[in-house]
């Protein structure tokens, strides 16, 4: 547990100094929301119909930006090797990076979320809390799969381009489940929301476990 908090704490200190990760995720997320607003303003579609898709497009692409930043930091000066020399298992290292990626994404998303509510003229009632909860579950899944995939793509020549190519197909279940759950909350209908939440949680658990076991292969030289 101690090394895990050390990694998260280190990333927070670096982020406070460089202010690169959260600000870029934030800006990107808000830009996506604004673009969506312009693109669909004249279509006359109900805000609650396109809203969930809009929100998760913003979240998942902003997450990729954050993941790229987070890994660029570890690749710079071969810092990842320094982490590998420390007396902790590769799996724990993975969990540490997931924790810090998750934390940064959540911070950015919790600022984007009110903007989403304001832009779409929604009132801040219990729907806000519900969507915040779904964001936490969905982001856990995205960071679980994104952390290991960003480590993989870091070895290629075009890391920034490679990450979305690897990540988007794998996070399809998260996107579908999160969008569906969000739309049910937005429309105040909750018939089968638990099924979607189960998929989100199941995805996170499966990927955390599998990645914990195979992370060694992704970082080994």
């Amino acid at each position: 547990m101690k090394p895990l908090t050390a990694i998260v704490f280190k990333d927070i200190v670096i982020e406070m100094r460089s202010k690169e990760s959260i600000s870029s995720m934030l800006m990107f997320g808000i830009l996506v929301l604004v673009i969506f607003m312009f693109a669909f303003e004249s279509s006359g579609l109900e805000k609650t119909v396109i809203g969930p898709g809009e929100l998760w497009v913003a979240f998942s692409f902003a997450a990729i930006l954050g993941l790229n930043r987070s890994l660029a930091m570890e690749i710079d000066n071969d810092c990842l090797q320094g982490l590998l020399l420390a007396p902790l298992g590769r799996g724990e290292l993975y969990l540490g990076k997931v924790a810090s990626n998750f934390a940064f994404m959540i911070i950015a998303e919790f600022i984007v979320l009110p903007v989403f509510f304001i832009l779409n003229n929604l009132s801040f009632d219990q729907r806000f809390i519900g969507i915040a909860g779904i964001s936490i579950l969905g982001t856990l899944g995205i960071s679980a799969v994104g952390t290991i995939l960003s480590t993989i793509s870091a070895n290629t020549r075009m890391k920034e381009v490679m990450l979305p190519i690897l990540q988007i197909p794998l996070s399809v279940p998260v996107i579908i489940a999160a969008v569906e759950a969000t739309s049910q909350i937005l429309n105040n209908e909750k018939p089968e929301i638990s099924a979607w939440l189960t998929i989100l949680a199941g995805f996170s658990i499966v990927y955390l476990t599998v990645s914990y076991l195979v992370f060694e292969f992704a970082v080994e030289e």
Partner: protein
Amino acid sequence: MKVKILAILSVITMIPALYMIFLFAPTEATQGNAQRIFYIHVPLAVVGAYGSAIMLFIGCLGFLITRDLKWDRFAACSAEMGVVFTAAQLLTAMMWAKPIWGTWYAFDSRGTLQIVLLLIYIAYFMLRSYLPDREKRAKLCGVFGLLGMVDVPINYLSIYLFRTQHPQPVISPGGGGVDPDMAKTLLMSFIAITLLYAYVFVRRLTIAKVEEEVDYLTQVALANE
């Protein structure tokens, strides 16, 4: 040698399969002749798309456990088969859907899964081509392939749930087709496609071996200079 036998076998079985599909099998009442696509579509999907997924999973897992290059070759060939067969299968699906549903593509549960699967296969291939170091390539692609194939059942679950919530007026292509002649045709076509798959796969595997040898000898030649 193995390749030649498989090639001959797949040609031998393909001819009766085509005969049965076009002439032997009865015309389906509601869909007409378009239904005949289904005889080639189903084997392509089952053997090509899902079969490759299982093979890719086995290849990646095998490599990560044994660290033997032959499993990496196996995985790479499975992924290539996945790309080719899934693409072919999607083409048949589109050709069938246009006259029957009136659209080229409908995002029903199976179709969506096929597209995601194709994207994962292609991503696996792109990753391979951007990793120059042989050992790194094998390891990282092994990890990615494993993660990708773990994704398939979860994907299926979410897409299935997604679609059953919004039922669409979609008749399963096999709806009502329990005619014994139809079953025989489908079986024959399954055999033909499986042999075709085996032929292409084994052929690709031998090429992969030659490729490895060329890589190695190039390195040796460079080192000697």
